[in-house]
């Protein structure tokens, strides 16, 4: 019935039949067809064998300790994922604190050198030598000072007045560049 080249129009219904997807009416119609159709009988037999083969294909569940280890690894992996954030912040915050402190400290140190050594005092040799000996100023400043020295007399104010306008301007530029405007 309905056979053509070993095919049957109801062949596709075999899986529905095995899976219990046919309603009562269609099931009885199909069962009646099945009694007469060799193609569907073969198909039913073949698919039932496939199902049986697959049923025998069992999963061997691993030992309990495998699952225990796995559960621990799940948490460890999560900790590994979380840890860098904590680590980064726990390291970064103190590191930033130290960096800020060092920068501020160094900045204050530089400022204190400039504040404690006014140019007027440097014009007096005795102060200058003391500062040099105590390493408050270094040779670089000494060489800079030598450049400036020619502009100084015992009386700085008088010395400045003796300078020409160009010399005064140059002097102001050198002092400004090296020590800032506040000492002028």
């Amino acid at each position, binding site marked *: 019935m309905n056979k053509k080249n070993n095919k049957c129009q109801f062949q596709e219904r075999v*899986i529905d039949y095995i*899976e219990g997807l046919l309603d009562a009416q269609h099931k009885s119609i199909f069962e009646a067809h099945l009694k007469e159709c060799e193609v569907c009988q073969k198909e039913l*037999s*073949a*698919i039932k*064998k*496939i*199902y049986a*083969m*697959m049923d025998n*294909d069992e*999963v*061997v*569940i*691993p030992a309990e300790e*495998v*699952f225990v280890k*796995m*559960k621990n*690894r*799940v*948490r460890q*992996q*999560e900790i590994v*994922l979380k840890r860098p954030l904590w680590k980064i912040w726990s390291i970064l915050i103190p590191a930033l604190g130290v960096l800020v402190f060092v920068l501020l400290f160094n900045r204050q140190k530089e400022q204190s050198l400039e504040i404690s050594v006014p140019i007027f005092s440097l014009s007096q040799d005795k102060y200058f030598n003391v500062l040099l000996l105590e390493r408050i100023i270094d040779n670089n400043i000494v060489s800079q000072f030598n450049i400036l020295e020619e502009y100084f007399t015992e009386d700085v104010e008088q010395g400045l007045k003796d300078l020409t306008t160009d010399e005064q301007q140059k002097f102001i530029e050198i002092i400004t560049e090296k020590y800032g405007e506040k000492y002028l």
Partner: protein
Amino acid sequence: MRQNIMNDEDLLLVRRYKNGDEKAFDSLFEMYKHPVYSICYRYVRNEADAQELMLEVFTKVYRNLRRFNERSKFFTWLYRITINTCISFKRKSHEELEIDSSIPNPEERNLMLKKAIDDALAKLPGRQKMAFILRHYEGYTFDEIGEIMGISSGAAKANHFQAIRKLRILLKDWI
């Protein structure tokens, strides 16, 4: 009925975990470790890959459980993670089981059959294979399979039927 009880229990555990109860995750793991492992094993057909997959699945669950919005059932969410993890899994090379087909004693025959099933399942497209696993081994309805796989019930059924059709052809020598 059992599924409803399971859903209620799942939901309670999920909420307990969200409220900081770490042991609730342990309970969920205990409840679903075997089904998840079975799905993974049936998909990849070897223990090492199945364990690796399961670890990946539960790591994803552990990481995202607090964000689980409870719009779907927990097991649907869990199985969807499992399926997506399985389908996107790149199989590592494993030593192929060498079988001498000239010695057809029962033990060898079983090994040959197992290899034939392995080979046949390996040739199925991921979604067809997963639909077959969920229907045949886990016993879910096509509606549930559709929900888990994020496809329609009809598509789930079509995937399952295609899987059987292909298995029928691939395993014809064993029928």
